[in-house]
């Protein structure tokens, strides 16, 4: 390991002496320190902090990705400037050299990431203290309880729409409703009925109620503890003041819990959090929540709106499981895992290509990894008919591309799966399981594959090769 460490130290020294570190720190300083003064957000304290963190970490990820690719120049420079002649004629195995270079870049990244994360943390606290509040009490509490925490989220338990659809289908068959339907497909009909039941369940008409049930709420059930209901609703027939008024009932007296009623006055199309005392959670760690589309404020105007809880914005119950600092640390680890993989890819590319080509290839992998989910979804959507691949050139091309991306998926990870910035910004827990997944999949498996390929190619390469 001492030789690996020697190469790593040298790479770090090069990064520092060649001013790469300085340039990065200046850039990140401009971005991170300048953002609070240029971002307005929604003018609330919570919005300012959330916007700052979202932009700050996005900029950091982009800059660190570029710095990682640029640091890999160390290897291609040593080959093109022939310093490699001196290094590889010393008792250094080629794998030690490759791993040393990767380790050097990775450690530099780690130091950059630590600096940036600490700066962002400091700036969050600065904004928290200095941002002019709209409602001092509410703003401070919202920031503390909804952003600067680590909350675990549980989605509501949905009714079994498939079972309901199956029952209805049986009834309809018995009633002979499909007797005159040509080429009747029961599975398609069941699917249609299931979607109909779900759509019906998601809509709550005036004076109607909807039941949401949550399970596995492992929280301290004392009245001093809080749980958060987070939801976003759309309204059919937009109210003139963009506000819908409704009642929420929390708890289940049949399970021995107190019941709390909350009258809300919320903006349409935005996420809202309702704080509930944790003793509304039953002993079996369940919580019953009822939504009633009824105005609890008699003095205010009555609108008979239909409320819709969309699938994309599922109602969630959140409860605190950790601190903001811990969440920030785990987010940094996930970002670091991505950088570990990217450094390995950049090293792999520089073992084969000159720096400009290697940088382009590495950046392409970076972009593909970031947009893999989106690209795969697009391709799946565009090429719906796999059955007849040779039916047209378009089908053939789309399916071929899908096959190539499918193969790349084995090597190129889906960075979006390990993007925790949104969770941090919304005060959601970046779970340890998630972090361990990131470490194992990105940091160990995919990184090892890329480094292994780099070592293999480097062993085969003639370092003094004359290109003609």
């Amino acid at each position, binding site marked *: 390991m*001492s*030789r690996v460490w*020697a*190469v790593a*130290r*040298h790479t770090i*020294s*090069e990064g520092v*002496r*060649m001013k790469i570190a300085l340039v990065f720190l200046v850039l990140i300083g401009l971005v991170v320190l300048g953002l609070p003064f240029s971002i307005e957000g929604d003018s609330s304290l919570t919005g300012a902090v959330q916007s700052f963190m979202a932009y700050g970490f996005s900029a950091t990820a982009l800059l660190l990705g570029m710095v990682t690719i640029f640091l890999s120049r160390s290897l291609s420079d040593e080959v093109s*400037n*022939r*310093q490699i*002649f*001196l*290094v*590889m*004629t*010393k*008792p*250094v*195995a080629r794998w030690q050299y490759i791993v040393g270079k990767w380790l050097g870049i990775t450690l530099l990244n780690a130091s950059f990431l630590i600096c940036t994360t600490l700066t962002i943390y400091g700036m969050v606290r600065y904004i928290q203290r200095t941002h002019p509040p709209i409602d001092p009490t509410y703003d401070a509490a919202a920031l503390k309880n909804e952003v600067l925490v680590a909350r675990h989220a549980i989605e509501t338990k949905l009714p079994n729409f498939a079972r309901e659809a199956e029952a209805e289908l049986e009834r309809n068959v018995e009633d002979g409703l499909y007797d005159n339907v040509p080429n009747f497909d029961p599975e398609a009909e069941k699917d249609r009925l299931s979607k109909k039941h779900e759509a019906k369940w998601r809509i709550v008409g005036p004076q109607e109620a909807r039941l949401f049930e949550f399970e596995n709420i492992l929280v301290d059930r004392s009245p001093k503890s809080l749980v958060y209901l987070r939801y976003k609703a759309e309204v059919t027939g937009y109210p003139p003041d963009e506000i819908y008024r409704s009642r929420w009932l929390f708890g289940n007296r049949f399970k021995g819990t107190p019941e709390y009623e909350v009258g809300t006055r919320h903006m349409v199309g935005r996420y809202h959090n309702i704080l509930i005392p944790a003793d509304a959670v039953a002993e079996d760690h369940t919580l019953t929540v009822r939504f009633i589309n009824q105005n609890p404020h008699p003095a205010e105007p009555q609108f008979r709106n239909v409320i819709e809880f969309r699938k994309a914005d599922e109602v969630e119950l959140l409860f605190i499981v950790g601190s903001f600092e811990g969440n920030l640390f785990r987010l940094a680890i996930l970002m670091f895992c991505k950088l570990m993989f990217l450094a390995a890819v950049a090293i792999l590319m520089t073992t084969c290509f000159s720096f400009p080509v290697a940088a382009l290839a590495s950046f392409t992998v970076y972009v593909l990894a970031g947009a893999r989910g989106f690209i795969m979804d697009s391709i799946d959507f565009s090429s719906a008919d796999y059955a007849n691949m040779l039916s047209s050139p378009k089908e053939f091309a789309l399916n071929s591309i899908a096959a190539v991306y499918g193969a790349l998926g084995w090597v190129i990870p889906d960075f979006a799966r390990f993007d925790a910035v949104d969770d941090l910004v919304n005060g959601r827990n970046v779970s340890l399981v998630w972090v361990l997944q990131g470490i194992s999949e990105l940091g160990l498996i995919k990184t090892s594959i890329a480094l292994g390929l780099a070592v293999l190619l480097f062993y085969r390469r*003639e*370092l*003094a*090769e*004359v*290109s*003609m």
Partner: protein
Amino acid sequence: MIASNPPIVQTVGLCKTFKDFWRRAKVEAVRDLNLDIRPGEVFGLLGPNGSGKTTTIKMLLGLLYPTRGRISVFGKAPTDVSVKARIGFLPEESYLYRFLVASETLDYFGRLFRLPARVRHDRTERLLDMVGLRHEAKRPIGEYSKGMARRIGLAQALINDPEFLILDEPTSGLDPIGARQIKDVIRTLGRKGKTILLSSHVLADVEDVCDRVTILYGGQQRAVGDISELLRERDVTLITTPPLEEETILQVRELLRRLERKDIVTVSNPRVKLEDFFLRIVEEAQAANIRTSGARRGGMVPEFLSQPTKSSAEEIVETLVSAAQRPKTVEAVRIGATSREDEPSREVIDQLLKREGAESDDDQPQAPASAPTIAPAPAGRPKAPQADRSVIDDLLREDRNRDAAREGRS
């Protein structure tokens, strides 16, 4: 003893063909090269530009892979890491890291050999002393002149006290002091049992330091052998003496005609070598402590590089760098053979040497008291020839007496 040991380097039928992008053969850089480098010898790899010297070295170091043939270094493949621990390499250009200072450079390469920190520090200091750059140890190498970087290149090649040293054009880019010093280091290391492969097209360098050479041309070996044998001029005898009077020269000429029926080809006062003259001027400047930001006179060859020998390191440096021991003015008499005999007439040499050990002439106190050096031809590592004027004078006096007696009888 040397011959009984297995060779350090052995190549059999070594070939290297460079190919283009489409894998078509473009240049056959090395063809069927068979090479043996024995332990403890200084081996010269000679050839004009593009003759395959550097390609051969790169294959010996595992930086290029042979197209055909076999290579073994210390009995193993050149890519073997354990082999590299025993090698020091100075490439044709220095290829150092511009952002590191000299001491960091040596420390880095020392780390790659897993040398302990104390040893690295100690060797770094000593090697910087040796190459005369200790006072510039904290300057980034990017600011160094080519010659200074070359010196650091040599120092890094020695950081591991290598058993086998590969030097590719070691004196290129160096001033005469540096070139002389590197040659001195090579000679010293050679004396101390290191095996050295020296590639150069500066023939004087190779001639000065090598035991054996091979000459490559067009990737093929054209000649190989001991340098003393390869360079021996068998039809010429060179006698070097202190300055002679015209009359004396005429008498020597007459003597040769009479005894050998041969004539003197040239009689001249040889010029001192420009290298010696230059070094003398620089030494005078150094003695006057004139400031310079460049390399200074190097120090002793560090003892860690080999087992200590009888001659001290100080002695080595003095011998190598100083020109003080050389004759100040020398007149050489070059005797050309009228027939192509393999050896000069022993009779003449015996006559010239028969007064060996005679006392010095009081009129020539500056002449050294040692016996004259008379060589059939410069062979091997040439030494500064020294002659005893008194021997020649005695010889000529005897000759004059004999002639006078002969005249008297007649």
